C-alpha cells in the first residue's frame, strides 16, 4: 500500500465525521421526541404513577428486574407484568405484600419492602402505566417477558 494518509486529514475526519453524526443524531432525537407522545402512554401518568416511579426507584427494583429489557437479569421482566398478572393491580400488590421477610430457603426471593398501602397502589399503577407503553413489535415477545 503506497497510499499515504496524513495526520491532519485523519484529524479532520475525526472532528468532521463526529460533528456530522452528532448533528444527525440530534436531528433524529428531535424527530423521536415528536413521535414519542403518540405511543408513550403519557395520558396514564398522574400523581399516583409518579409516586409509583419513586417507589420503584427508591427500592432499586431495577437491581434484580428488567423493565422493558433494561436492568438486572436476576428476576422477571416487569414491562408486561400487569398483563401477566391478569391485568390486576390487586394481584401485583398482593404479590409484593406477601414476600417472606427471611426469604425462601435455597431459592431466590424478592425482599419484603414493607410498603405502605399508598406506595403499593403507586407501584402497581406505575407498572400498569409501563405496560401501556406501545413498544415496537409489542415487545416483550410473549407473556413470560
Amino acid at each position, binding site marked *: 500500500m503506497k497510499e499515504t494518509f496524513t495526520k491532519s486529514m485523519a484529524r479532520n475526519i475525526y472532528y468532521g465525521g463526529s460533528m456530522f453524526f452528532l448533528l444527525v443524531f440530534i436531528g433524529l432525537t428531535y424527530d423521536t421526541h*415528536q413521535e414519542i407522545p*403518540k405511543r408513550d402512554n403519557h395520558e396514564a401518568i398522574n400523581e399516583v404513577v409518579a409516586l409509583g416511579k419513586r417507589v420503584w426507584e427508591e427500592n432499586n427494583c431495577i437491581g434484580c428486574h428488567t423493565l422493558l429489557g433494561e436492568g438486572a437479569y436476576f428476576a422477571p421482566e416487569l414491562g408486561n407484568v400487569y398483563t401477566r398478572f391478569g391485568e390486576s393491580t390487586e394481584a401485583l400488590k398482593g404479590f409484593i405484600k406477601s414476600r417472606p421477610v427471611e426469604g425462601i430457603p435455597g431459592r431466590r426471593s424478592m425482599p419484603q419492602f414493607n410498603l405502605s398501602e399508598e406506595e403499593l397502589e403507586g407501584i402497581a399503577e406505575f407498572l400498569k402505566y409501563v405496560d401501556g407503553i406501545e413498544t415496537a413489535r409489542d415487545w416483550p415477545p410473549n407473556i413470560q417477558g
Partner: protein
Amino acid sequence: MNHTDKNIVQYKPLPGDFAIWVFIFAELLVFGILFISYAFTRKYNLELFNHHQQFLDRETGAINTVLLITSSYFVVRAVDAIKKNMSQQSARWLALGLLCGAAFVVFKILEFNEKFSEGITLSTNIFYMFYLCLTGFHFMHVLLGMVILAFILVKTHRRKYNADDHDGVETGASYWHMVDLVWIILFPLVYIIR
C-alpha cells in the same frame, strides 16, 4: 504500510489522502446496507412501496441527478486544472461545482418541504421511513461535501495548491464524487424502478 515495492508495476495511488478513502468506504458500506435493506423491505411490502412511490417528485429527482453529475464533472475539471498549475481556473470550476451543489440543496429543500407539509415523517410508514432516511442522509452528505468543497475552493483561490501539491483538492473531489455515486443509485432505486 511503508514497505518498499520494487518489482511491482507502478500503480497510481488512490487520489487524495488515504484517510478520506477509509471514510468513503465506511460511508459506502452504510449506504450499501441501506439500499439492500430498501430493496428487500420493498419485496415484502410491494403494494405499499409501489403506491407511495408514485407521489415522489421524479422531475426534481431527475434535475437533481443532472445537477450532481454536472457538479461532479466540474470538480473533475478543477482537479485537471490544478494539475496544470492553473489555480484560478481550478477555483472557478470548484465554484461552479459548488453552485450546482447549492442548486441541488435548494431543490431538495423544496421537495422535503412539500413532503413535510403533507405531514409525512419518518414514522408515517416504512416506505417514507426509507425515503426520508436515504434522501435525508444523502442530503446531509451533500451539505458536508459542500463544506469541504468550499474549504478547498478558498484554499485554491489563495493559491495554496499547485501542480505538485494538490492532495487537498483530490481529497475533497473524491468525497464529492462519492456523494454523486450514491445518488446515481439512490435516484432510480427510490424514484423510478417499480
